[in-house]
């Protein structure tokens, strides 16, 4: 086994404790390193208190840890200022929160939002729900022959009514990397802000929001080795004046009268209620874990090696499979396929019996499934603790599965 992979693997108790199981569902959620598990325990043993309002030492400790986590996340994505980091419960919450604000303060009837057909439902429904009520129109860019968002088609959809482009960095179903930088440059030439859904890129591609020059960016902690229940909405400072949500509550205020309220600044006014404090701190410790192990790019390199091998082995079976990517497509370590004429449910069920966890179904991307004219796919998604040997065992199991279904 590759030494670097071995070193990472050892840090994941779930992986160590289930040597016979193969976990290839990392795009859904990653396993957690010991550092994150200990972080959660440590929080409840040594810190636990509510944040931001207490004068006692525990509340001060908890607040300091929580705000230190904000700085760690800001550094991790190279935000200019920690106030640009808004903690949420996850990507879905982040997009809803942003939509809640922008429909409150920014969009007007007749405006248009440009998305792509490859978006996760979490980057469609928050816009669709509200757009239908407010008379805002959604437009969808299609895919090119490499299964990426077709940038030329996207550009052709933009009009003077376009007020936001919301696009996924990496497709959760196909693993393809989209040309978000080019899209952002084009959008800014037309004064259109951009939201990047980084849920699937955050654990694989180094994220630098200043270099990308994105206006908004969202991701979930649980897909990057952190606990569930924490996510981030990154919002460039110049948009903070638009960030007034319709839903609000405790903690988000400076002064409340019975009939009007003076709100706190961003990020606090967007973090109403008691947040998931231990998960926020756990996210910071997941970032420490990533940095200690060489940073995201090191993970990317290990995963590239695995991915290339997986691709090679799957493309060897090309006659029996429909593969929804090409060898030329820029991608992360995610691949979707179907066994020809077989339902992904059957393939996933049999693979599970061989001890291999893959995901089957539409992956919350039904518009994409309709575009590809399929019901679903089998999705394999790798992390840096997976191994070449596991890929070999998976391919063996896939052979047996195909035989059983014939």
């Amino acid at each position, binding site marked *: 086994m590759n030494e670097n992979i071995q070193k990472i693997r050892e840090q994941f108790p779930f992986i160590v404790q289930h040597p016979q199981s193969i976990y290839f569902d990392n795009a859904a959620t990653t396993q957690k390193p010991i550092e994150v598990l200990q972080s959660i325990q440590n929080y409840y043993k040594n810190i636990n208190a509510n944040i931001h309002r207490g004068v006692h030492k525990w509340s001060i400790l908890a607040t300091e840890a929580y705000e230190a986590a904000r700085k760690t996340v800001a550094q991790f994505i190279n935000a200019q200022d920690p106030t640009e980091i808004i903690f949420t419960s996850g990507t879905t919450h982040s997009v809803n929160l942003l939509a809640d604000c922008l429909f409150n303060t920014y969009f007007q009837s007749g405006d248009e939002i440009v998305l792509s057909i490859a978006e996760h439902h979490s980057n469609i429904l928050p816009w669709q729900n509200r757009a239908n009520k407010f008379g805002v129109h959604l437009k969808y860019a299609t895919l090119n022959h490499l299964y990426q968002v077709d940038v030329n088609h996207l550009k052709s959809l933009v009009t003077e009514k376009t007020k936001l482009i919301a696009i996924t960095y990496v497709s959760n179903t196909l693993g393809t990397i989209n040309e978000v930088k080019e899209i952002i440059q084009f959008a800014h030439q037309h004064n259109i802000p951009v939201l990047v859904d980084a849920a699937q890129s955050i654990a694989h591609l180094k994220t630098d929001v200043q270099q990308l020059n994105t206006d908004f960016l969202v991701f979930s902690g649980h897909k990057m080795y952190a606990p569930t229940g924490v996510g981030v909405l990154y919002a460039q400072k110049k948009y903070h004046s638009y960030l007034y949500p319709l839903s609000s509550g405790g903690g988000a205020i400076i002064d409340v009268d019975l009939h009007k309220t003076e709100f706190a600044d961003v990020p606090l006014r967007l973090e109403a209620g008691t947040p998931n404090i231990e998960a926020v701190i756990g996210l910071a410790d997941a970032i420490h874990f990533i940095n200690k192990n060489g940073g995201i790019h090191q993970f990317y390199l290990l995963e590239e090696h695995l991915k290339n091998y997986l691709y090679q082995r799957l493309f060897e079976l090309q006659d029996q499979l429909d593969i929804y990517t090409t060898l030329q497509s820029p991608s992360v370590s995610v691949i979707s396929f179907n066994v020809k004429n077989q*339902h*992904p*449910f*059957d393939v996933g*069920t049999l693979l599970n*019996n061989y001890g291999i966890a893959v995901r089957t179904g539409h992956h919350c991307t039904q518009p994409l499934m309709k575009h590809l004219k399929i*019901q679903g796919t089998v999705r394999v998604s790798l992390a840096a603790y997976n191994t070449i040997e596991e890929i070999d065992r998976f391919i063996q199991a896939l052979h047996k599965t195909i035989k*059983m*279904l014939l």
Partner: protein
Amino acid sequence: MSQNKILKIEKELLDEFELFGDDWEAKYNYIIELGKTLPAMPNQYKTDDYLIKGCQSRVWLKADKENNLLHFMADSDALIPKGIIALLLKLVNHQSADEILNYDFGIINKIGLQQHLSPTRANGLVSMINSIKQYAKAQ
């Protein structure tokens, strides 16, 4: 004793599964082959009206009541769910509504596939059983 009819079929099925021991591949092969023996369901019935909600694959089930006996037809676009519905129909097809409603559908646990075919939403086992019961309840 009419209730015995379903239990008798169940017993026969259990005897067959007994032979497979712990060999899950053999059990699955049996189920997949069973699915292939289902009489074809005419395409005109493969509509939303007969679609069982709650499965990752599509499963259609239709029943006609005649002299208080239920006659089912079913199909699926996936082999394993098709096999499962075929297994269930082996038990309940052409039986009376009362017998069906009295049966506890314990077969899946008893054939030792519960860890493989647990009643999660994805495989739709619960939805299939509920749908069968609905047809039995309907007048």
